[in-house]
């Protein structure tokens, strides 16, 4: 009996032991180890796609995924809400409010997220670049992919330097601080900021490589040779290198891959930009990327009553510009909310003029594929460079090329109106054309112009409904109505997370 028991015990023990002492290493089911990305052919493709996805995705940040947080949403809000085309219709504790009020701080979460996600994209691009450059036989398809990653890195760096450094044209680029350059995945965590010049040099170097590598275009959802040229034109415009701006704008215009929308196609352009010819590069959002009321770019700008918050509207000065000619088809993207069919409805005392450039892809009020480069900008960048060179005929020709296609063929500008400069004419047209697309905030300051927001809106702190008298301008005694171009506070603080963890990084 005892022997049987002992034997039984041994058998149980050994059997359990045998079955369990096997390897206990485990791997995640929906993640791939960084090291094995290079082991498969689609590794590079997936990482490159991932880098595009990071422009649109809500990422976990500070431990959770806030619907507000998406690279492009912050990109548009941090730029356009700090400009004069959009008026704030409601006080809010959303950090987007600080762009309206210019009460920036190092710990405002929208800026912190933008910084973090920008560098995550750069890390992804660096990963792809390092894998591809480690390979010997590069096909044209692989080179295209490499070029796209250089483009993505340059685009991310360029947006960072514009938000977190003084504009190139009004700075001392060789001494003023730019951004932290991250050119490989193996750098130490702590690193100092480069100068503005070094930052621009790195951006141009990436784009020059990208331009040469991309010869197998994959569609408007992906970067292309012309996208790199378009970004080069934008970069040189910021540097006030007029010749290069003209050169690269012209390259894109003459590539014959794109054409301007006409007065009849423009109103349907933004909802269908993927299939339209004016688009150079957009970030593709598909129906599953519709981010609804809490996370879409559109939700602050438009609501059908339920779809969004609809708290920020087209500003009085913008509408005044647009009202110069009611035939202007750019009115198509202003949707007036009427109280009773006649009077414009108000929210908290501010008239409701919704903005619809980010709505109605597939009919969804919260869905669009934001256009980041389109042909009209190339004409206008070139016009600005011509204007700065004093070349009035060429500048006006480019401006009129736009106007012809926006229902203003009978209202072309043949000479500079009295009281205006040629640059005023170009910038006015650019404002009309590219409003709400993330240009105005940069265009004003880099041209040494003040941001004048002398109109009623909740960018005025402590405003109550009763203070608003739409018949008059707000009294000039109110603080911060005008942000002067040399006001250092117009740019964003380096986020607190970087300052805390990177001792070499100097705050603005």
């Amino acid at each position, binding site marked *: 009996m005892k022997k049987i028991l002992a034997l*039984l*015990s041994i058998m149980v023990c050994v059997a359990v032991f045998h079955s369990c*002492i096997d390897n*206990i290493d485990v791997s995640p089911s929906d993640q791939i180890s960084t090291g094995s990305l290079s082991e498969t052919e689609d590794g590079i493709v997936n990482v490159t796609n991932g880098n*595009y996805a990071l422009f649109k995705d809500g990422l976990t940040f500070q431990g959770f995924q806030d619907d507000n947080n998406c690279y492009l949403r912050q990109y548009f809000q941090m730029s356009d809400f700090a400009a004069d085309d959009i008026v704030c219709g409601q*006080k809010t504790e959303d950090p987007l409010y600080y762009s309206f009020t210019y009460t920036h701080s190092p710990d405002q979460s929208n800026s912190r997220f933008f910084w973090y996600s920008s560098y995550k994209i750069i890390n992804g691009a660096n990963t792809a670049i390092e894998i591809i450059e480690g390979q010997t036989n590069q096909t044209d398809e692989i080179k295209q992919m490499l070029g796209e990653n250089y483009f993505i890195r340059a685009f991310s760096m360029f947006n960072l330097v514009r938000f977190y450094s003084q504009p190139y044209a009004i700075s001392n680029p060789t001494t003023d601080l730019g951004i932290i350059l991250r050119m490989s995945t193996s*750098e130490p965590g702590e690193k100092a900021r480069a100068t503005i010049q070094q930052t621009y040099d790195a951006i141009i170097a990436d784009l020059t490589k990208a331009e040469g590598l991309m010869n197998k275009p994959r569609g408007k959802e992906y970067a292309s040779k012309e996208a790199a040229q378009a970004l080069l034109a934008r970069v040189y415009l910021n540097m006030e290198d007029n010749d290069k701006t003209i050169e690269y704008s012209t390259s894109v215009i003459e590539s014959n891959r794109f054409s301007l929308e006409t007065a009849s196609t423009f109103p349907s352009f933004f909802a269908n930009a993927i299939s339209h010819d004016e688009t150079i590069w957009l970030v593709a959002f598909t129906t599953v990327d519709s981010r609804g*009321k809490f996370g879409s770019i559109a939700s602050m700008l438009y609501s059908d009553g339920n779809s969004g918050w609809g708290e920020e509207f087209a500003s009085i000065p913008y509408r005044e510009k647009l009202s110069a000619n009611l035939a202007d088809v750019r009115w198509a993207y202003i949707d007036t909310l009427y109280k009773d069919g006649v009077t414009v409805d108000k929210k908290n005392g501010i008239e409701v003029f919704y903005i619809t450039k980010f709505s109605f892809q597939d009919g969804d009020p919260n869905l669009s594929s934001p256009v980041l480069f389109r042909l009209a900008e190339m004409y206008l960048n070139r016009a600005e460079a011509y204007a700065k060179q004093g070349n009035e005929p060429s500048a006006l020709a480019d401006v009129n090329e736009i106007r012809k296609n926006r229902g203003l063929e009978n209202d072309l500008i043949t000479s500079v109106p009295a009281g205006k400069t040629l640059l005023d004419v170009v910038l006015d047209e650019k404002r009309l054309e590219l409003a709400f697309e993330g240009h105005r905030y940069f265009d004003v300051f880099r041209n040494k112009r003040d941001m004048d927001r002398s109109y009623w809106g909740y960018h005025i702190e*402590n405003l109550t409904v009763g203070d608003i008298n739409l018949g008059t301008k707000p009294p000039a005694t109110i603080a911060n109505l005008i942000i002067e171009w040399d006001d250092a506070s117009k740019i964003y603080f380096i986020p607190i997370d970087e300052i805390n963890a990177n001792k070499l*990084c100097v705050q603005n």
Partner: protein
Amino acid sequence: MKKTITFLIIQLFVVYSYGQVTGVVFDEQKVKVPGVNVLILGTANGTVTDMDGKFEIDAKVGDTLVFSFIGYEVQKVGITSNNQTLTIQLIPFSFDIGELVVLGYSSKTKLEISSAVSVLSEDKLNDTPSDDIGGLLQGKVSGVQVVTSSGAPGGGSEIRIRGVSTIKPGNNEPLYVVDGIIGGTFDPNDVESLTVLKDAGATGMYGARASKGVIVITTKSAKSGNTVYEFKSSYGYNIADHGNVDMMNGQEFYDLSSEQYRDEDTHEIDKIKFYADYPKSLQSFDNNWLDEAFKPAAIQKYYLSASGSSKKLSYYTSGTYYNEEGTYRKTGFQKLNLRTNTTYKFNDRVTMKNNISLNASKGTTYDYMDMYYTYLGVPWDKPFNADGSSRYIDGTNAKKLSDGTGWWSRDPINPFHTIDNSDHIYKGAGADYDLSLDIRIFDWLSFSSSNRIGFSTTKGHNYVSPEAAGTYKNKGYIAESQDIWSGGLSTNLLRFNRVFGDHSIDGLVGFEFQRGYFETLGVSGTGLPVGFDVPSVASSEIKISGSNNEDGLNSFISQATYNYKGTYFLTGSYRIDISSNFPPENNVAKFPSISGSVILSKMAFMDDVNLIDLLKLRTSYGVTGDPEIGSSRYMGLFNLNTQYNGKPAATPYQLQNLDLTWEKTNQMNIGIDLELLKRVTLNLDIYSNVTKDLIILRAMPPSTGFENQYQNSTGHLDNKGIEITLSTVNIQKGDFKFTTDFTFAKNTNMLNDFEEPIISTVGGVTQIYQNGGELYTFYLPKWLGVDAQTGAPVWEKITKDANGNVTLREPTSNYSEAAPQEVGSALPSFTGGISATFEYKNFTLYANAAYQYGNKVYNATRIFMDSDGHEPYYNNMNPKDDWSRWERPGDVATHPSMQNNSLSKETSSRFLEDGSFFKIRTVSLEYRLPKKWANSIKLSEISLVLTGNNLFTSTEFWGQDPEVTLNSGSWSMPGVCDFKYPNNKQYIFSLNVKF
């Protein structure tokens, strides 16, 4: 390795002879006692006396039999001859000091234990009908802090034993061991005893997972041969307790709103402007949102069990049904628990135990935003139509009208309409099956194999009707998710027990293996036809997700206890764990522990001291660990859970760290147990726990593309403390008895030797963990109040010299100049509880209170409810008595002028409040019907109980409840109070019957 074990077992194969010991047990009145536990000391072998008080057990010469029964002193009798017959007379004892304490892998009498453990018997645990073990523990065990941070039906509590010994986010709950096996499920009614293991002397056996303490649960088994039925039923009400939150009524909010119109020059309210914006008629509208949203809700619990035993078989089987309706609109929870425990003796040597536990639950929960809007709804708005249905509000019909049909609340959302047109349902089911085999190979050596397979699944269902206002209007939304967890554990031990004269030694050695598999699947979509709420009908934006996860732990376990003359005890244990959560090079950890004790009162020099019944000194030292960081945290990873343009996409997710290894806590404990005059029991423990190699999510510069990396810190986290438990029989005279139990625990927490401070921010609130500081220390600009001349908010500006020393502190009204500083921790400096029991004849009056002192709570709800006009269309709460708003120069006020309030609601110490509280947890009155009445209707016991829970809280905290979460994770920061499901006041009537 395998060969060695086989060899070892064969080596131990020596023949010993057994004999059958029989006997009978009487009580002090010579009445035979059924149900007395009889156990061979140092083994798991035992039996219970039958209805005639008789027992039979296989024991050999030299064995010691331990007799224990509730209310009686434990007796030990040595076996001197084979086939001995014993007659035992139990000696009544007012303290159950000698009762067997279940420590998980082994059981020992209290006298034998050298470590810090606390035991709660069934009746002390279940002082109120509840589904939540944490709530039942609050205030009862020293050193155990319980936080019930939500009153949601079916919601649980958070338990912290001896403070917090880790920094990493995630699970900080103690390890549960049910019926000797790690993990498992149970209903509080099924608990026979609960043991809290607090120091490494006791928890060292659980090594890898013991740093946060261990709670050992033993479920019930048959007490006697005859079948005994027990039925308990409870019925009562929950009433929402909003604490100090008293939202403004229509008139109060109207008056507050006028403050926005105080003229900056005259300092009078500009009534013309104010009446133009806020028509006078608004004052007459008054909807109490909280009264409409929260209604008294029924709570019921029913329990039925049967137990009994025969010579070969003993069983316990029970069922519990719990149903709690929520006080908040459309919330509730119900749960069913079934358990069957059977023990079958094949023969004198082989015993098998089968325990099966099944549970199923269903809950209806709420959306955070609905709770948020319920508190913040403006009282001039009507949420209901004339017919009582909830009003439809959206951006097209929400107008600021003066006739009572307007909508003044900030957002065009009626939370009641949203609630009525949405569902948030979750369901769960689980099963555990335990199979244990005990084989006595020789009289001194036995083998036991304890095995459990477990399974649990939860399903979530979130639905928004196309008829609900908001983003899903005309589309609807459905999201369902299902999680499945399955796992198994096997513990295989050889136990031995030898006695040599005055010396005895017992112990165990073996292996344990654990595996867990987790799978999750989710689906969501929009475009639903009205009236349908399943994923199949979704027509658009269809998304799926799904992944799985696996973990494993292999362990070697050993323990030995030496005992000299029942006076000196020495226990050592050694455990080795191998976890899949660490890189293969670093996945092995060793956990030794040693403890010793001496019973001074048994020594000769104490013989003459009659005052002292027991005086015992204990000490222990050991190492425990905590591997709970989740799988694969050391790997460099790219996420594959997104897409671009419909194609797979990989995004950078995690930085690699192949050096990552175990976090370990070195624990030391010294304790004294003292019993005087059979009326006073005092337990005192002093401990020091030092956690090293702390796993931290170290902040990386975000310019690397990563927020953080899992690393082992150079720093250590030190918890030092003292715990006192004092139980006294204050009065015992005739039929009257008055007893109290008092617990007190002071814990200090300090961080040392960190390479750099760890800064953690959730929802805009920041904490700093740095040298010399406490864990969960808030790091905020310091609020100094309001400038008496301007009415502007004032913070403290600090100037530091090159060495970082503060050279100047001055007030500033510029928020950006006010650098953050350490302003207090969310951890309390002491916690405890008091219980008092008055017994008179058949009546028992019982009260239990819990207290906590010295913790800070950040009241994030005040950003909205006390907003200085920053959010003019959110309702505010009525201010505390000593709050005042600045109106004109010279006012000494706590709240700034609404005209000069720039950034006043930004994160600062303004909203950081004292979270100390004293709470009457439970008051109950029990009446036991006289036995003859019960017997006359063929019942053996009947009792009626009235219970009131959470009746009174004394606190300075001006919010819902000072009990706020201590969980550190994605959505929550320890010590931050956000809008939550309010706690409840409960009134319950119970009827308990035995037959």
